[in-house]
């Protein structure tokens, strides 16, 4: 045994809190875990720790010290980082070159403790939660060009690279996105980046009728004006089970917070934005409605609030994330009525729904799945009954997922039970 290996073996035996600083250390520690059959809790900054089942593991593998930018080539439109690199730091670096992560990583910090926390690159990739531009540009999984990581046996593996077109073997970059650290311990991720649009405006339409809202979503999706965000925020329920948040979450000069509103965003240069708003006014017959126009600064704040779920800031209730085909949004809106606090993103597809802790969520889940959708229980209240599954999955997909899990992690050591009870 080499001295370095011996040292890592000793560290592994002595401590339950492991914080590697290099890929080789990660590999050695996992080899030890494999040898000793020790389950491992893999995590970054813990910004999304509350999602999924609690992991019961002997060892805690913290990736927050494996951080830093490895390579950033603005002209090649990619950035290669270590997994513990904070998303906020990446965004600050990109900003200097007028670039961004255009999938708008969801910020779960506010619902946890009222403060922004976008977590790490590794966490962002592993959880695959994209924001409002999803229907236009794609999800996190569409922006991962490649990765390096360590599988459950301790072997360092890689897939993809730095180029956008790449058909060399299975596209494992997609597979690991949304796998919640159950397949690979990431040691390096390469993200595709995009040029930031010079300006943006957001048009607010004050309307609440589900049929009209559904129709507006459809018009957004049918438009050739490249609308890059469309949401509906209904009135907050009057029930005392919800702490009022809406006026705080959307505190903007040009936004009338009373009542429900529909909002859509246009990005580009100012001339193009004006031209497109004019065209959309005809497409949507905007003169029929009461509207507001948020300028670049207000628009930016508005979408930050949407993508950081500030409507549910510090909620003690259950928070569900449902995705349905856009044509089913009206049915779901009618079901939700004013009983739950919610908003709709992705132009009619993504519902964030806050359910009071004493409320049975079975009917709601059934309604979503009956409407060809899926639902994830994101945040659980203290009294959450674990009889409810947190992720939606059918038996065949579960069987396939289990086999794939075994091919990466044959001893089931990575985040055991995080997504499904069986593995």
């Amino acid at each position: 045994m080499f001295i370095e290996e011996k040292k890592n073996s000793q560290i592994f035996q002595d401590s339950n809190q492991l914080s590697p600083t290099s890929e080789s250390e990660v590999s050695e520690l996992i080899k030890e875990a494999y040898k000793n059959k020790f389950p491992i809790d893999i995590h970054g900054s813990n910004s999304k720790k509350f999602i999924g089942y609690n992991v019961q593991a002997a060892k805690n593998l913290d990736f927050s010290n494996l951080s830093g930018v490895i390579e950033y080539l603005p002209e090649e439109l990619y950035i290669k980082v270590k997994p513990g690199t904070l998303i906020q730091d990446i965004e600050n670096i990109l900003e200097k070159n007028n670039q961004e992560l255009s999938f708008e990583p969801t910020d779960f910090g506010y619902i946890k403790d009222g403060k922004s926390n976008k977590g790490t690159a590794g966490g962002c990739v592993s959880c695959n939660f994209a924001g409002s531009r999803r229907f236009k540009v794609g999800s996190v999984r569409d922006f991962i060009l490649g990765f390096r990581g360590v599988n459950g046996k301790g072997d360092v593996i890689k897939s993809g690279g730095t180029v956008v077109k790449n058909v060399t073997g299975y596209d494992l970059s997609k597979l690991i996105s949304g796998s919640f650290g159950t397949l690979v311990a990431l040691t390096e991720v390469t993200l595709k980046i995009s040029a930031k649009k010079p300006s943006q405006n957001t048009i607010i339409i004050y309307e609440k009728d589900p049929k009209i809202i559904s129709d507006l979503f459809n018009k957004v999706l049918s438009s050739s004006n490249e609308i890059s965000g469309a949401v509906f925020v209904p009135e907050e329920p009057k029930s005392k089970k919800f702490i009022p948040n809406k006026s705080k979450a959307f505190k903007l000069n040009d936004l009338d917070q009373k009542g429900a509103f529909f909002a859509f965003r246009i990005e580009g240069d100012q001339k193009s934005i004006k031209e497109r708003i004019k065209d959309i006014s005809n497409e949507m017959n905007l003169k029929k409605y009461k509207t507001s126009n948020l300028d670049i600064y207000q628009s930016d704040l508005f979408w930050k609030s949407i993508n950081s779920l500030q409507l549910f800031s510090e909620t003690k209730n259950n928070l569900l994330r449902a995705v349905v085909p856009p044509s089913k949004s009206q049915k779901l809106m009618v079901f939700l009525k004013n009983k739950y606090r919610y908003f709709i993103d992705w132009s009619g597809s993504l519902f964030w729904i806050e359910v009071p802790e004493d409320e049975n969520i079975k009917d709601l889940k059934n309604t979503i799945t009956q409407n060809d959708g899926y639902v994830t229980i994101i945040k659980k209240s203290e009294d959450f009954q674990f009889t409810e599954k947190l992720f939606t999955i059918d038996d065949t997909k579960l069987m396939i997922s289990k086999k794939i899990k075994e091919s990466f992690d044959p001893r089931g050591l990575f985040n055991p039970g995080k997504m499904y009870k069986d593995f």
Partner: protein
Amino acid sequence: MSEIALPKVDRTIVSKKDLIVSNLKQFTDKKNVLSELDEIKPYETDALAAYKNLPLAVVLAENTQEVSEILKFCHRENIKVIPRGAGTGLSGGALPLNDAILLGLGKFNKILDIDFDNKCVVTQPGVTNLSITHAVKHKGYYYAPDPSSQLACSIGGNVAENSGGVHSLKYGTTTNNILGVEMVMMDGTICRIGGKTLDQEGYDLLGLICGSEGLLGVITEVTVKILKNPQTVKAALIGFPTIEDGGNCVTDIISNGITPAGMEIMDKALIDATEKFVHAGYPMDAEVLMIVELDGTKSEVEELFKQIKQIAEKNKSNSFKLSKNEKERLGFWSGRKAAFPACGAMAPDYYCMDGTIPRGKLSEILKEISRLSKKYNLGVANGFHAGDGNLHPLILFDGSNKEELRRTEEFGAEILKACVRMGGALSGEHGIGIEKRELMCEAFNDNDIQQQINIKKSLDEKNLLNPGKVYPILRKCAEEGRVHVHRGEEKFPDLPRF
């Protein structure tokens, strides 16, 4: 070149051919099972026509249930299965094996649901890529990925190869444009992945299947996203005096935050060849020609072309021509799209390569290709999807000269190795198939390849589905053939290839 190691033929399976054929006839209409030589001969190759091999039998299944029954039977009896769509693949992914059933999906040729509300189309896998756009264009929609063979290639094959096209820089490849598939596993299990929703929960199985080259399952249904046509589309032809100037211009356009819908580069050899072939009006004084296409609103397209013109001038462009109308725009593309047949007219044979490089390495790889061209004493014409770094050099040679053929193979392999060395990939859109299988170890080490093989084993433990493809059999980085075209006798010669 036409010699390649294939999985060992199982003689017991071959000896039971008659029994297998009669069994297969239980699962589908008798006329769908082909076993006579004249019937199976047309299936002996795909568009990588240098390699030919006869299957044991061909089954043209008609529905998912039949596919499931056939696979269940083959799984039980240890019979290998090669799935095949339209057979237009350029990497030999559908090359048959003597002891394998070739499962043709040509009869899966119906569009099942056009859903404008959810902006998607549900289709059977044998439907051609272009038919999808044709089915929705009356309402101003289209399907974005546009491989050059879109007239004939099937959407199921597009999923298997993760096909791209000219517009993938802005709109992505197949994997970014599909919502769901129905798939049959080797043991006959029918599985639905995704549907009409964006993303799916849990492991991204859709992402895994897309680009898996028919090794993990047989696709029996695909749900694709459709997009609204852009308001304005315009293209510009820009000439440059040197390779460096053209390459630098590509990088500068992207660095300036412009994302063209398409950005192509052609070198002098290809400009000359295509101009002679279709008279597209290309500037003959240019060493490098760029075609840039932008789409969006009218004012946006105009403004961005102003910027591109300035960037081009800064990079010493010696001509700039903007399309005035749709006819002219299509004219600009006509030369680029005729690249393959134009090369066919220049030499008895040509090889088409498919590698990717980081955009910034464009002039470096062109110089390297030029150096190799001298080293091997062989002509080469270069066409690039420059925006996404995907290159298609066409090596010109005479296949009847064995020594020249050997040099061509070495030349091709060296180009792909250079791509990997420069941080690129072995294949941008044609796939690995059998063609680049042994080169996989240039890009991946044993651990990487073993992990991929473990996934394959987990879903097809007997390795019956499309064996011998993608992963090296020899585990030595041997040089293999590219698309070999002899005297213009390309498979599907009428398809544009670019």
